[in-house]
């Protein structure tokens, strides 16, 4: 019983701390607990039971993707690229090792080692460190301690016909009252996919292997230690939108944490973790004999860090305090080979051994003013330090730039929520700084195949300063729920690449040199509308509409802003049988930006359908699913597809899952 009460205590805390702004009467709290527990069991979208992390993320309203192929999509939060958001795994900072952002953090995990993905918009996400767009925290699966010894497992396999993707995902967990072990292993292999015209999209294949292990040991009734590791390896990953492919990437992500719960007092939980992760990412073009220049682009990123979090609760006040510290070393090289291979190869660093150190303290506070209203106030203060070992590379474009740079990154945010009967309202505001990323500050001839420019970083860039406002209004009754959200960002010193009058391209495909510079400001507006309606007891409808607009200081369009887009789905479930269908698409991209290399992308509509059936073989719960994406085989590419690479055509997928 003791353990249950502790578990409940902790669940209660995590619910109030994390979701306090959503619901607050006790019944709904319980609902939240169950919902959360359910969510912890599955990373899947409504359409598809076996999804990749990318597919799962794309089912969220404020996430969109830049795609360079079938693999490793770069998530855009609030239509902002990954420099502006913090992407973490259980609060651990990890930085990709590819200068071209071919390895967002989301590419180093697999859906079967994650429990949930926690997305926070804007400065609310500053808990994990300085941000503008918000935070994406990938939560790893961790089985709780149990009184009885328990083994759990699941195995999932499937095949997708379009790109002959075959995947196997396996999970096993063991729990007892002192010891817990979680393990997962997965392998995916896909060939080239075919677009809506049934043409093969060359260089879109991939192979990915991922495994993870978590071990937890209860050191006392109220404390535990936990060791976690993820190993991920991708090989032979094609990027059709790029002139080169990935030959190998490897990530080792490890952490050791200690958690202490307190039965009474102000502080309820302290969870501290030290972590280490190392990423290697080797791009080369040996698969592209048509290239004029043979080139290698290896990259390495190594991070050590500490994250320590305390949850405080007293009466109607609750708070989270988090200390973040990390040290990252990013190295990227490029080596070009002359046509006469006996001649000397040409070498430069695209990241000249750049160290980033960050230390910051963040805090989120919540007060329940009444049963119906809640106030939140939070902020963070961080110190960001950069050091460029081979600063002479940076001096070529920025003579005399400092080798070291220290920046202070403050942030503040406030919000108010109000529930009146079936309505809920919220307003919020935020202010925050972010430091330029390694590429923005110290990048050197980083080729961007979207606008075909070589990018140069500027160590003297000012902090980007964001002022944001957000509001939401919702209505919910037994059958219908509607939620509307808007946010607006005014970002001072907005960092973007602009054509430089000096220098000449280094990469043979490129047309010029762009330098990262600060615009005076840029503005971004995001809007989303969600509705759900239970048509019948077993028939449910959901719809989403999103719109965004981004403008620079001369009222020109910003790139990679999603046009008006929609999704609508019907979901029928009865007993062991379920069927889902959805239609989604984008309207034509009216506000595109030729200045930043965009052309207009036309509208498209995709229809998907799937059916699943659940049954038991002996005691093993089995789910089988068959479905089709892009059923009408539409030929399309989206606003964020590099080089207008067409998306996948009709894709029939099948999957089978066993739960032990």
């Amino acid at each position, binding site marked *: 019983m003791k353990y249950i009460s502790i578990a409940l205590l902790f669940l209660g805390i995590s619910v109030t701390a994390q979701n306090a702004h959503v619901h607050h009467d006790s019944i709904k709290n319980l609902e939240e607990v169950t919902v959360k527990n359910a969510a912890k069991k599955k990373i899947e979208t409504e359409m598809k039971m076996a999804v990749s992390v990318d597919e799962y993320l794309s089912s969220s309203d404020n996430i969109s993707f830049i795609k360079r192929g079938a693999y490793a999509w770069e998530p855009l939060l609030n239509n902002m690229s990954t420099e502006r958001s913090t992407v973490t795994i259980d609060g651990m900072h990890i930085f990709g090792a590819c200068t071209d952002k071919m390895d967002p953090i989301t590419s180093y995990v697999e859906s079967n080692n994650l429990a949930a993905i926690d997305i926070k918009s804007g400065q609310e996400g500053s808990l994990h460190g300085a941000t503008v767009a918000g935070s994406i925290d990938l939560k790893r699966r961790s089985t709780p301690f149990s009184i009885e010894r328990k083994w759990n497992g699941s195995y999932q396999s499937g095949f997708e016909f379009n790109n002959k993707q075959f995947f196997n995902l396996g999970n096993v967990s063991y729990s007892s009252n002192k010891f817990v072990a979680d*393990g*997962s292993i997965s392998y995916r292999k896909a060939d080239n996919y075919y677009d809506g015209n049934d043409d093969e999209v060359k260089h879109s294949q991939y192979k990915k292997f991922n495994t993870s*292990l978590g071990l937890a040991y209860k050191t006392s009734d109220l404390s535990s230690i936990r060791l976690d*590791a993820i190993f991920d390896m991708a090989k032979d990953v094609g990027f059709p939108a790029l002139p080169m492919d990935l030959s190998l990437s490897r990530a080792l992500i490890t952490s050791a944490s200690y958690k202490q719960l307190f039965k009474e007092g102000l502080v309820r939980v302290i969870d501290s973790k030290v972590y280490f992760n190392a990423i290697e990412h080797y791009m080369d073009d040996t698969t592209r004999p048509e290239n*004029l220049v043979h080139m290698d682009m290896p990259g390495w990123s190594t991070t050590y860090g500490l994250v320590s979090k305390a949850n405080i609760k007293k009466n109607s006040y609750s708070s989270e305090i988090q200390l973040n510290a990390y040290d990252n070393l990013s190295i990227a090289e490029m080596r070009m080979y002359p046509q006469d291979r006996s001649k*000397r190869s040409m070498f430069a*660093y695209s990241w000249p051994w750049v160290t980033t150190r960050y230390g910051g303290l963040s805090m989120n506070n919540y007060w329940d003013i009444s049963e119906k209203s809640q106030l939140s106030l939070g902020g963070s203060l961080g110190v960001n330090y950069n050091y460029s070992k*081979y600063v002479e*590379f940076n001096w070529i474009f920025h003579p005399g730039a400092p080798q070291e740079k220290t920046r202070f990154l403050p942030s503040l945010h406030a919000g108010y929520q109000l529930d009146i009967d079936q309505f809920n309202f919220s307003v919020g505001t935020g202010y925050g700084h972010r430091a330029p990323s390694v590429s923005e500050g110290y990048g050197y001839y980083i080729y961007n195949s979207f606008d075909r420019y070589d990018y140069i970083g500027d160590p003297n860039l000012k902090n980007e300063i964001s002022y944001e406002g957000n509001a939401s209004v919702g209505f919910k009754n037994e059958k219908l729920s509607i939620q509307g959200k808007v946010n607006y960002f005014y970002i001072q010193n907005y960092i973007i690449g602009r054509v430089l009058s000096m220098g000449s*391209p280094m990469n043979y495909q490129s047309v010029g040199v762009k330098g990262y510079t600060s615009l005076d400001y840029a503005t971004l507006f995001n809007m989303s509308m969600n509705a759900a309606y239970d048509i019948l007891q077993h028939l449910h409808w959901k719809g989403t509409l999103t719109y965004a607009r981004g403008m620079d200081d001369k009222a020109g369009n910003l790139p990679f802003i999603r046009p008006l887009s929609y999704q609508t789905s019907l979901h029928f479930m009865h007993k062991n049988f379920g069927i889902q269908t959805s239609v989604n698409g984008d309207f034509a991209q009216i506000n595109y930006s030729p200045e930043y290399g965009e052309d207009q992308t036309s509208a498209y509509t995709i229809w998907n359908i799937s059916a699943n059936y659940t049954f038991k073989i002996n005691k093993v719960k089995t789910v089988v699913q068959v479905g089709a994406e892009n059923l009408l085989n539409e030929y399309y590419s989206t606003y964020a597809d590099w080089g207008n690479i067409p998306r996948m055509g009709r894709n029939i997928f099948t999957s089978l899952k066993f739960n032990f």
Partner: protein
Amino acid sequence: MKSFNFFVIAIFFVITSCTIDKTDYEAEIDSEVPEYYEFKEAVSLTSGIYKISIEALNGTFYKGYNELHLKVINTQTNQSLNTSEVTFLPVMTNADGSTNSCPHQYNLEYNAANGYYNGYSLFTSESVTTASWKLYVSFTVDNQKYEINKDVSVEKQSNKNLNMTAFAGKDNEQYFIALVSPQKPTVAENKLVAGIYKYNKPTTPAGTFPDPSQFSYSEVTGYTLKLDPRMPEPSMGNHSSPNNQDLTQQSDGLYHGVVNYTMTGNWTLNLIMMNQNGLILKGTVVPTDFTPGVEGVKSELYIDTLF
């Protein structure tokens, strides 16, 4: 436990293997470009009780620019002389018996701080069997003039960053440009130093050999070398770099500027030489277009480098 075992194997794999090593950037440049700091004796000449010791970097005369440190030593007292008038003249004899010299400092200056005579010689070719270099040195002690000479060997300069070029300007004068530094450039802003010399055509008939008036060279003054560095390799498509500075003469008589190398490899310093009045004596403007697959067009006046 099975997955645990697998995991252990996987970890082991990660720790024990590294498919691509990081480039040791500094070592890589070192391997291509020797850098010499130390002056060592390259040749010694004796006349009676006096010994002349000429030091050059690495104890070797190379084709191109050589800074020289010369000492006159009384072998009996083992003391260095500092009041002598020292002259220095390198002469090359070709297979047909004709002779020529190269830019050099004829009257050496005594450097009291370091205790040697300073000079330079810009050897315009390497010693081969059919053409050999001889140094003619004279010095005066106690009003007595000593003249000695000795054959020396001029080696090939394997460091392309110390390349030189010889050419006739539009004014029909014979010019020489030699790179003096950096010996070892890096991907960075590099201070570029070069010497520009011209041959002074003799105005009088030749006297007794070796008549210095027949072998007279001088530093040119007040010229400008306009600089446009580019990578000539076809795959680099005429790539160039920003923030370079043209070379102008400084108080040491040499020409100083800035060259930015954006990556290692072969580079061409495209030059335009202008005299005091801005008149172009040699060199052409090169195309600035980015032309992947096409070898970069060079100026008619250029020096290649490699690091």
